């Protein structure tokens, strides 16, 4: 791309955005939801850069410490280790331990080796309760927002990018390109979603958060593809594209400089629909066992932990993760609707 083309791309946006901003500003609910989404994104950024919930994995309370306002004066159950019997008293049944001399030496130097350290003091209630290990549910929810939002956003970007590029090629060129990509699309949509998840998960073979993103991205592109293809089918015969052709604009230029900006509202709306869908899907992936790795926490993993806790009357983790998710997803959906209206080219300012 030449610098001029870049300048063209960047210079169309101000008006698109200005227009959208103007329309959005009139939509009170849309604005409120925007604030909520921004709040969550700031929160997850804060957590990502370590300003927030940095010590989320510290076990500060007893297991399942209740929220403060529910706290009873129960004794903190201190989990004292049983004292270790001196090795010398253990019957080796005639066998020799090659490590014995070494351990004797160590124990002679460090008497504290013989007895394990005393348990650290833990509180017996927390602001919004603690999880199974005694970690703060609030901090966990904040930390979880980082993963869930990251997963949702990046996976949505991946899915939307795949869907957009394939849809653009398919709709723009038509002919055998369209036939082939359509075939590919049909194959993908014909396979049951559940099995597709299993299959892709098996291919990717569990590598952590990136796996989840790829599973969601690789299974979620089909909807975008269908819509973008339809948009391109519609636009490629529009007079402005024909005019560009008459002007000698290349395929690339017509596809991405001319048509793409005109499908941007569809792409953006699909993107945010996907974000919402993927944040929710992460819960199901966790349920199926393809969740985040242990050292990471997400809302999906929290809800799955909470599965067995509700019956025990430990509702705080379920509520924290559930409410956080519902709030963000609702705000995002409302924002999507507002965005759809704001970006709709049919509605003249």
């Amino acid at each position, binding site marked *: 791309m030449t610098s001029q083309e870049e300048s063209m791309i960047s210079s169309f946006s101000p008006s698109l955005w200005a227009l959208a901003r103007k329309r959005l500003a009139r939509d009170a609910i849309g604005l409120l939801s925007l604030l909520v989404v921004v709040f969550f994104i700031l929160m997850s950024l804060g957590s990502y850069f370590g300003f927030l919930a940095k010590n989320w994995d510290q076990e500060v309370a007893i297991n399942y410490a209740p929220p403060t306002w529910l706290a009873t004066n129960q004794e903190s159950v201190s989990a004292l*280790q049983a004292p270790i019997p001196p090795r010398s008293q253990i019957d080796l*049944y005639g066998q020799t331990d090659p*490590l014995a001399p*070494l351990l004797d030496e160590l124990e002679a130097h*460090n008497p504290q080796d*013989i007895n394990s350290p005393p348990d650290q003091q833990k509180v017996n209630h927390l602001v919004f309760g603690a999880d199974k290990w005694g970690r703060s549910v609030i901090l966990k929810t904040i930390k979880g927002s980082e993963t869930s939002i990251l997963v949702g956003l990046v996976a949505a970007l991946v899915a939307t990018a795949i869907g957009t590029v394939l849809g653009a090629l398919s709709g723009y060129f038509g002919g055998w390109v369209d036939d082939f990509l359509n075939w590919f699309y049909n194959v993908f949509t014909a396979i049951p979603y559940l099995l597709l998840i299993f299959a892709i998960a098996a291919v990717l073979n569990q590598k952590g958060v990136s796996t989840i993103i790829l599973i969601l991205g690789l299974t979620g592109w089909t909807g975008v593809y269908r819509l973008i293809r339809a948009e391109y089918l519609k636009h490629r015969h529009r007079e402005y594209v024909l005019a560009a052709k008459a002007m000698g604009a290349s395929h690339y230029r017509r596809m991405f400089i001319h048509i793409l900006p005109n499908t941007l509202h569809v792409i953006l709306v699909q993107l945010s629909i996907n974000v919402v869908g993927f944040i929710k899907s992460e819960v199901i992936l966790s349920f199926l066992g*393809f969740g985040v790795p242990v050292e990471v926490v997400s809302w999906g993993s929290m809800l799955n932990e909470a599965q067995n806790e509700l019956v*025990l009357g430990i509702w705080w983790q379920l509520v924290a993760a559930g409410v956080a998710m519902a709030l963000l997803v609702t705000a995002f959906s409302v924002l999507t609707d507002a965005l759809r209206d704001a970006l709709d080219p049919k509605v003249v300012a």
Partner: protein
Amino acid sequence: MINHLRQLVISSSVLFAVLVTVYPAHSAPLKVLHLSLSAAETGFDPVMTSDLNTAAIEEQLFEPLLTYDYLARPVKLIPRLAAQMPVISDQGKTWLFTLKKGVYFSPDPVFKGKLREVTAQDVVYTIMRFMDPKNRSPYKFLVDHKILGLNALADQARQTGHFNYNAKVEGLEVVGPYQLKIRLTGTDYNFGHAMAQPMFGIVAREVIEAYQGDTASHPVGTGPYMIGQWIRSASINLVKNPNYRDERWHFTSQDPQDQKIVQAMTGKRIPQIDQVDIQIVEEAQSAYLSFLKGELDVFGVPGQFAPNVLSGTELKPKLQQQGIQLQRLVDPAIAYYFINIEDPQLGGMALSRIALRRAILMSLNDEEMIRVIYKGQAFREAFPIPQGVEGHDANYQSLIHYNPQEANDLLDKMGYKKAKDGYRRQIDGGPLYVKYTTTLTSQDRDLEEIMKKSLDRIGIRFVSEKLKFPEIIRAERQCRVAMRLSAWIADYPDGDNFMQLWYGPHTHENNASCFQDAKWDKLYEKTLALPNSPERDQLYRQLARLLEINGVTKVSTSHIRNVLIQPWVVGYKAHPILPSTWAYIDLIPEGERH
């Protein structure tokens, strides 16, 4: 609108609930036992059975020659289809079984309406089936290479593609219509346990041949029950076998707590309950709530719900008031950590590697795991043979204790230095991490968390590998699993069933630690020639100690089974080995409960 809808749904379901409760009053009061299983059955051909849930149902459909006494603890073998205990001679090499007379198979179209009696030939056929390659029996090992001449027949079948069931086998001699002499290839005092497994329930040849290829859907046995309604993977309904012989409840016990059972049940005809309704419920919450609602009669509480049911070792008062009973018993199983001796990072018998493994095992906090994950429904078990299994040693003291401090010192001393990232490297500076293998389930996620925490304590990097269960087994057999918390449940209550897990020649089979040590193997082989005796016990202790010294294994826990019983269930006693005992209990019919 939504509210409206809900009301509609609720009112309609209330209406039908009424209909449903009214309905049974019209028919004769049936005694129906309601139960749940946590995983789907896999079909009811005993020779192909591989899981406990299926075995539990087969225990009621089929009858092996022997069984375990309902009340006796520790468990004791008693005759079932056999008329009396087998006569063992020739240093445990020859076993003479005599069958009960007048034992008939449950009705099936194959018998064309005639009664079909069990004979010794049926036992021979049943045992032969385990060696037929076509049946690919998971419990083949119980007879494999054990019966004279039988393996030759299997080899022949593998070549010809056809198993000759008519062939005479030296080790399976029919002495008379009701007598059978089994000759073993070597001394085996445990052969009786094999013959007590539900998989060895006797089948009829003509039935198996009639349903060739679909035997799993047509179970025909001699057990007290037979299959009624069956919705695959969802619900199985057992009904009384009309051909069941007149068998009376006759168990005795010295335990004063059992006297009530004995009193209530003695002399009653087996079985008392008309139908057993078993539902497959995979989600623990569903099963648990279902029991609380009275939809289930007997229920093993999943560990995670124990705090709701128990205070300490007692049932919560609220449940006690409802008349619910609690029975606690120790599963004849162990959970144990093993480290792969062939693993390039952790394996080898060099002192530094032994120290590394010992340090890793010392970082594991079993107490925390019991408290947080198992909710106290497990206890620290150091010996590889669990309670209730012959060879168990209750006084055995572990060499390896939770002691991260010392583990760290040990690693420092051996030269596993920490790099900038805070994690240790190999002595030569190479990469060091523990690749820990688990499945995708949420329970295993808890174990992963424990493992990660433990390794962090001693500065060793944790790497997780999640595989499906069959994949784990494959990886273990290929000695590719570096470390895992594995579990082993007794196939039969003898220590050998556990100790063989570390036997060198079992590498690539079920010795997942791939521990091959000449000294250990020699000691183990000595135990094989011995019956259950103090001499063998001493050898077992030495074997267990050697596993610890070499850092191969740390036995972690044994689990407590908490069984909840509804007040209307009579005569229930949880059994550690028998997969199901439904024929031995009774119910107060629904109409007579209050």
